[in-house]
């Protein structure tokens, strides 16, 4: 019984997600697709940052690899940019595999650096990837990018064609509706896999490495290999996320995969709560949806100036509110969005049975001591510098 109760919120969320295409218009469907693509990437990153304590700002590079691999693999071999003409499902898998291999190639660095140092080192990957995307014109289409063939399985295409008209319960199912379900399936798989990785032997080894590399090594964990493994897994997630982004856009170009994308992924998982899969999803929704909502509704406010008049206009206000929202979450919500909801649930149900979320902070939330103490040792975090440093 308690297990049913515990799974109830997740099951409800899935049901709601499955029902949404019947209600939403194109704007929200498109936003939903971007959000779900981001969720997959964020889950991958939270496994790396939250579980293994490594930080990456290179995820845009792996997302780009996944996106271009997908576009290249499904592309017609005679098209303007080169292609293999493979079945889309295979191409989707290939996107993850290629990104994982690239992640493995980076292991001489990812296995030796830790925490925020790795994060900064990976910024370089984003610029390398961009250089390649712009210059390898035959495969990537150069700066102007290339179109992405729609996803399909034999007899059914996830686009506006084949079948040209499809209605379910009176609602016409166009490409966006069809893609929604494809994305939903991928997100569920990614979340399920992520949970299992966290709970598996590998996941526990990674958590040990995060908490203390010395202790982990003493227990027989190959630290460098564990760190590289985390990086590879997370790269594969980013590759799949990139392929989904490619499908959601329908056309990809180097500009979509800049440093800002890497930074956005990081914002997602930090706001969501490091290490939490549900938090990664919540963070992705926050980053993708909030700016759009703010933009849409701030233009209705009466007191704002018209753009160009020098006063405070709606777009500027929306951007300021977005920045303020990020700051507010970090100042007031311990454990991010997931930590906050975890505490709420905690108050109602005293059973501490939630393995989905990071260890919730003790309720009620103790006020942060002035001078912001160091993080509790067991809490997911990114170490600045090793305490075991020998000068």
């Amino acid at each position, binding site marked *: 019984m308690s297990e049913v109760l515990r799974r109830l919120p997740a099951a409800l969320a899935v049901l709601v997600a499955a029902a949404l295409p019947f209600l939403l*218009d*194109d*704007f929200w*469907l*498109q*936003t939903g697709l*971007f959000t779900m693509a981001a969720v997959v990437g964020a889950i991958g990153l939270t496994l790396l940052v939250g579980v293994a304590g490594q930080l990456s700002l290179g995820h845009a590079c792996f997302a780009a690899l996944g996106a271009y691999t997908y576009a290249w693999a499904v592309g017609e071999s005679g098209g303007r940019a080169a292609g293999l003409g493979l079945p889309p499902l295979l191409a989707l898998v290939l996107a993850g595999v290629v990104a994982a291999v690239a992640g493995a190639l980076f292991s001489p660095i990812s296995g030796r650096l830790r925490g925020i140092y790795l994060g900064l080192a990976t910024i370089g990957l984003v610029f390398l990837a961009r250089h390649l995307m*712009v210059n390898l014109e035959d495969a990537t289409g*150069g*700066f*102007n*990018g290339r*179109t992405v063939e729609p996803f399909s399985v034999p007899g059914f295409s996830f686009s*506006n064609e084949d*079948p*040209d*008209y*499809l*209605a*379910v*319960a*009176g609602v016409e199912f166009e490409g*966006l509706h069809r893609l929604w379900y494809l994305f939903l399936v991928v997100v569920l798989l990614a979340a399920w896999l992520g949970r299992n990785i966290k709970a598996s032997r590998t996941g526990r080894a990674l958590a040990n490495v995060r908490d203390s590399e010395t202790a982990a090594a003493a227990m027989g964990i190959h630290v460098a290999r564990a760190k590289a493994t985390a990086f590879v897994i997370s790269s594969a997630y980013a590759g799949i996320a990139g392929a989904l982004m490619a499908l*959601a*856009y*329908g*056309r990809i*170009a180097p*500009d*979509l995969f800049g440093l*800002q994308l890497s930074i956005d992924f990081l914002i997602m998982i930090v706001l969501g709560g490091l290490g939490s899969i549900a938090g990664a999803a919540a963070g992705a929704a926050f980053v*993708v949806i909030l*700016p*759009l909502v703010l*933009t*849409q509704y701030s*233009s209705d406010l009466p007191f704002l100036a*018209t*753009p*160009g*008049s*020098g006063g405070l*206009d*709606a*777009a*500027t206000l*929306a*951007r300021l509110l977005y920045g303020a929202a990020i700051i507010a979450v970090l100042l007031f919500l311990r454990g991010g969005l997931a930590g906050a909801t975890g505490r709420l649930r905690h108050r109602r149900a005293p059973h501490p049975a939630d393995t989905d979320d990071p260890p919730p902070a003790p309720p009620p939330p103790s006020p942060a001591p002035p001078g912001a103490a160091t993080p509790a040792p067991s809490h997911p975090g990114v170490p600045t510098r090793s305490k075991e440093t020998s000068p």
Partner: protein
Amino acid sequence: MKHRIRTTLALAGCVAVLAACSTEDPDAAPAGGGAEGEVRTGTGVTADTITVGMLTDLSGPFAAGAAVQVTETQAYYDQVNTEGGICGRDVEVDVQDHGYDPQKAVALYRSMASNVVALQQVLGGPTSAAVLPLAEADGLYLGGHGWAGVALQYENAQIPGTTYSIESANAIDYLVDELGLAPGSKVGVVYFVGDYGSDSLAGAQHAAQQRGLEIVPQEITPRDTDLTAQASALQQAGVSAVILGAAPAQLASLAGVLAAQGLNVPLFGNTPTFGPSLLATPAGPALEQNFYTVTSIAPFSLDQPGVQAARDLYEAAAPDGETGWEVPLAYAQAELLTTALRGACDAGDLTPEGVVAAMRKTTGLDTEGLYATPLDFTDAAQPPTRTVYVSRASGQAEGGLEVLGTFEGPSAQSYPVG
């Protein structure tokens, strides 16, 4: 037991969904055409309003220039509405801010596509590149997306003038024919990575080949605001002229450094390269001495009725506003769309498809000086004109540019677009 229940539920769900499935389109029959003499309408048009969309950057790197265009466009349609509107309807402009983020642009496009009859503007290279294919699939008019040649492949996109490539080809022709550049000379091209800069480079390369010149290319990014290294490289290569496909910050740096190095050669810029506030920077004297610009849209100060109308409208709407090329451009873009809307109305088909069809029938359009020649949009693969305005930087002229005249060179005529 639990498993069996789950399986049964799943099966039942599938059956229920299948029962509700249909692949027969009930609306497949041709849509009602309305009675004889009545205008057919579709998305974005009601009995008393026509809604057009602007997808622009009001919070990102191009916010300031974009805001000028929004102000001018709003003022233009306010005037249209006071004069009776289009097709007996008022025009409303739905402005949304994508902040130069392609993801936001695509999502906002989805919200707009079902509410507007045409997109007056989609600003920005990466953002318009992301939106163009979607608008093409929906058959929606799209304008105000800059002058990159790659957009010419889209039937639904109305390029607001000639391309960057033809601007640059004209610059080379002007150098040879008017400024007496000798054959065999070298011309530096400093250009932004991307559709804008590479288009500019392509035009210059074509023209250089035609006129027996050599191109020295230097690629930069919008982040480069100190072009000392590039200027030194150009000097080392011994260039006799430079073409710049970049933004005002790069122009100020390049002009200043070249002059400081004693390399006082003509410096040509594409339309987005110049901004009047540059004349107040340390590079001001160098600009006044060496800078020319080739633009398909008329400079702010041109004494022609179309440009005067744009200026008057803008000065009434924003008395303290910036006085750049954005003002005549926004006015001209609004005029282009208005022409297409009126054409669609006259043809009795004020639907998104009807607007695109009317736009493609636009020929011999006189813009009273906003463009150098009448415009012809009947062939989607060709620019509407190949003539440009050539101007020089001048502290006396309003908007910082003094117009020398119109120009169309042989390499600009022969440049193979697309």
